[in-house]
């Protein structure tokens, strides 16, 4: 297949779900069966993405397929030079694997939803939303520039908002939608500023162009600090979308949406977009930026894992587990384990989607009961759901023969190598603690849900295995959690096609002085930047990874085994009472159960602060602005009163006075004009006599 065909096919894959969105949205009411078209469209998109993936990974393994065109040409802008905005598609190995993952899970979720959402009144609208989500997610995956990335970034935010608040009649659901949207916005502002910093400097949004510029020594504003800042700012977008520590609060609330949506958007694909973004900008991350990212990821993973320990809502446990695993991926990117971060993204997408769909199956059969204290013993009633759930749980816990073992082990080895190379030992310590906690809370979930005896007999009686369309995706996804899809060797991922052929750490473009020394490979440094698909791990790093490989594997096995053992002792065999432990560390238990009060702190600080600020502003408006307005009105009134008085008394007085005077004069002089001729004559005669005396000769 030629490159051109690949581009065309990827465009078709991109636009198909959009097409589905429009037809289902506009004609869904008239033809209630139209959702089947949407399912068909996604299936077609999945098949096409398989074709593209095969073509790319066989023919163009070490070559990116690029296509771009000028979207807006501003021409010669004064002070800025030639300015044009390009759009484009970049298909590299990352892209095709993401295409496959997104389309596969999207297709499975579509099929699953046919049964899960059957009784919903807005059935076709639901499928339309799934369509626009898939479109936006594919856009993120396919883009070759930050601008399109940002646009599609916001579009997935929108579709996430629509789907979280899908049951908007429920107050909590519509609140959760708003919360997700607003929390994401906080991160997106950082990302936006980061993009602007890069665009201001390079007049281009294109990844490749920007990296080429940085590689040639042209740093943003000429300083390494700005390069670090740009990396961290763009990473902020990932903090929002991938629910990293300070902005993680929206993801657990997002579980208000339908469960298949949680599986697709809030576990497998959209939240992984943040990790994908960091992977895309990985080559321009400086040492400082990477350290920040590693710390944020580590803190997130530990923080969320401790919360997941005590949650009782099946979806909440999975949600916090998702946050924790996303933290893992981000941490992996931060420590430079690029390959394993992406590997974990893919494996996590499959097993976490499977876990969510499995929990959806449970919730469906329990008639929308989500509290695991009401469950138990479901193993007998729902065997397929149980076994698929178990396989995925094993995968997320990192048990050998599963995909999770391979990717998690790689990440842990990466953190260990990082610790050895830089001395930041806290990060591997956190990594292993989280592995322990993950194994514990996941098995706690499995045991409480499926093992033991039913705790709510009424609901248990009515429980049943889900229909075929719901079980089939579970089976497919749990199969994908087995090792042989990724590597022939179940113990080490090193020999796999995934980590050594398809996904390789790109060559960093950051100047030597600002980068971790182990990120720079002397042997390829001199060659052009286009070769960053080559294996570029430096000798030092490869060495450290080899050193870390077996200790990491053994330790991760030990901690995972301990976690599982503890879960069984506490919940299966009931040797240790969980209540007693909770009592003995009451403060910690309370903190974990209440999610460390982050929501409350935000409510007090940011939300309360905003409201306070609003109050202050309204007070300012009410007293100062209104005071000025009212004051000026009052002054005007006083002035007008004075001027009115002036008018009434002085001007009117003058006018009236003139009139009065004339009247007075007229009144008095009119007496002279008596109308009696004789009087006049007397006056005339008298006047003549007087005149005689005045001018006369006497």
């Amino acid at each position, binding site marked *: 297949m030629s490159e051109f065909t690949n581009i065309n096919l990827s465009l078709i894959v991109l636009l198909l779900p959009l097409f589905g969105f429009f037809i289902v949205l506009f004609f869904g009411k008239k033809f209630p069966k139209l959702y089947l078209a949407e399912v068909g469209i996604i299936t077609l998109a999945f098949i096409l993405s398989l074709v593209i993936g095969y073509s790319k990974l066989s023919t163009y393994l070490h070559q990116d397929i690029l296509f771009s065109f000028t979207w807006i040409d501003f021409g010669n802008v004064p002070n800025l030079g030639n300015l044009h905005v390009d759009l484009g598609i970049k298909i590299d190995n990352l892209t095709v694997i993401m295409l496959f993952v997104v389309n596969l899970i999207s297709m499975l979720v579509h099929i699953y939803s046919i049964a899960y959402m059957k009784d919903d009144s807005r059935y076709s609208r639901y499928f339309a939303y799934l369509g626009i989500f898939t479109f936006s997610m594919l856009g993120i995956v396919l883009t070759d520039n930050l601008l399109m990335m940002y646009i599609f970034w916001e579009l997935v935010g929108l579709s996430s908002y629509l789907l979280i608040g899908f049951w908007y009649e429920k107050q909590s659901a519509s609140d959760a939608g708003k919360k997700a949207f607003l929390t994401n916005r906080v991160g997106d502002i950082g990302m936006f500023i980061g993009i602007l910093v890069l665009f201001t400097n390079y007049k281009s949004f294109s990844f490749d162009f920007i990296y080429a510029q940085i590689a040639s020594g042209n740093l943003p504003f000429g300083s390494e600090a700005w390069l670090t800042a740009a990396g961290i700012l763009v990473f902020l977008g990932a903090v929002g979308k991938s629910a990293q520590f300070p902005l993680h609060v929206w993801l657990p609330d997002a579980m208000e949406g339908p469960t298949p949506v949680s599986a697709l958007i809030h576990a497998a694909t959209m939240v992984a977009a943040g990790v994908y973004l960091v992977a895309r900008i990985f080559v321009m991350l400086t040492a400082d930026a990477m350290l920040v990212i590693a710390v944020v990821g580590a803190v997130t993973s530990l923080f969320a894992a401790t919360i997941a320990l005590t949650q009782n809502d099946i979806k909440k446990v999975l949600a916090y587990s998702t946050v924790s695993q996303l933290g893992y991926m981000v941490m992996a990117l931060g420590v430079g384990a690029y390959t394993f971060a992406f590997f974990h993204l893919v494996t996590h997408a499959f097993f976490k989607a499977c876990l969510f769909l499995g929990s959806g199956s449970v919730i469906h059969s329990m008639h929308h009961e989500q509290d695991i204290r009401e469950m138990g013993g479901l193993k007998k009633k729902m065997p397929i759901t149980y076994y698929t759930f178990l396989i995925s749980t094993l995968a997320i816990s990192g048990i050998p023969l599963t995909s999770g073992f391979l990717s998690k082990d790689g990440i842990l080895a990466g953190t260990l190598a990082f610790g050895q190379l830089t001395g930041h030992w806290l990060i591997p310590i956190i990594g292993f603690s989280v592995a322990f906690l993950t194994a514990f809370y996941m098995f706690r979930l499995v045991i409480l849900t499926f093992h033991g005896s039913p705790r709510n007999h009424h609901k248990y009686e009515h429980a049943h295995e889900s229909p075929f369309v719901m079980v089939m995706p579970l089976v497919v996804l749990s199969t994908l959690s087995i090792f042989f899809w990724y590597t022939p060797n179940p113990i080490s991922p090193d020999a796999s096609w995934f980590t050594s052929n398809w996904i390789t750490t790109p060559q960093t473009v950051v100047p030597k002085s600002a980068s971790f020394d182990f990120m720079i490979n002397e042997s390829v440094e001199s060659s052009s930047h286009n070769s960053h698909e080559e294996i570029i791990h430096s000798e030092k790093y490869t060495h450290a990874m080899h050193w870390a490989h077996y200790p990491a594997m053994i330790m991760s096995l030990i901690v995972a085994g301990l976690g599982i053992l503890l879960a069984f002792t506490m919940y299966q065999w009931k040797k240790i009472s969980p209540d007693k432990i909770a009592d003995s560390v009451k403060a910690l238990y309370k903190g974990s159960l209440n999610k460390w009060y982050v929501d409350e702190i935000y409510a007090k600080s940011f939300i309360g602060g905003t409201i306070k600020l609003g109050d202050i502003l309204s007070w300012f408006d009410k007293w100062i602005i209104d005071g000025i307005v009212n004051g000026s009105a009052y002054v005007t009134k006083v002035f007008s009163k004075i001027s009115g008085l002036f008018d009434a008394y002085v001007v009117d007085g003058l006018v009236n006075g003139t009139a009065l005077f004339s009247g007075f004069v007229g009144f008095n002089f009119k007496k002279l*004009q008596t109308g*009696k001729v*004789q009087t006049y*004559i007397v006056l005339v005669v008298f006047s003549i006599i007087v005149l005689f005396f005045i001018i006369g000769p006497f």
Partner: protein
Amino acid sequence: MEVGLNHFLTVSVALFSLGLYGVVTRKNAVMVLMGVELILNSANINFIAFSKFGNFSIDGQLYALFVIILAAAEAAIALAIVLNIYKRFANVNVDEINNLKE
């Protein structure tokens, strides 16, 4: 006693004063007109007296003739006006005919 200029003037003044008194005091318009005639005639006496005693030849007497003719014309017109006033107001009292005042 020689009759001189002063005697004429004295008569003339007396006649003028009588005429003026008539014009000023009479309420009847006809009587007022008669007062005016007296004043005109006193002026005639003056003209003739100055014609005789002054060195003004015959001019004064001619003017007196003019005045007599004018007085006749004036009397005719004035009486016609008085007749019209009477027609309009049903009396000829000059005090009451003061419509122009308003």
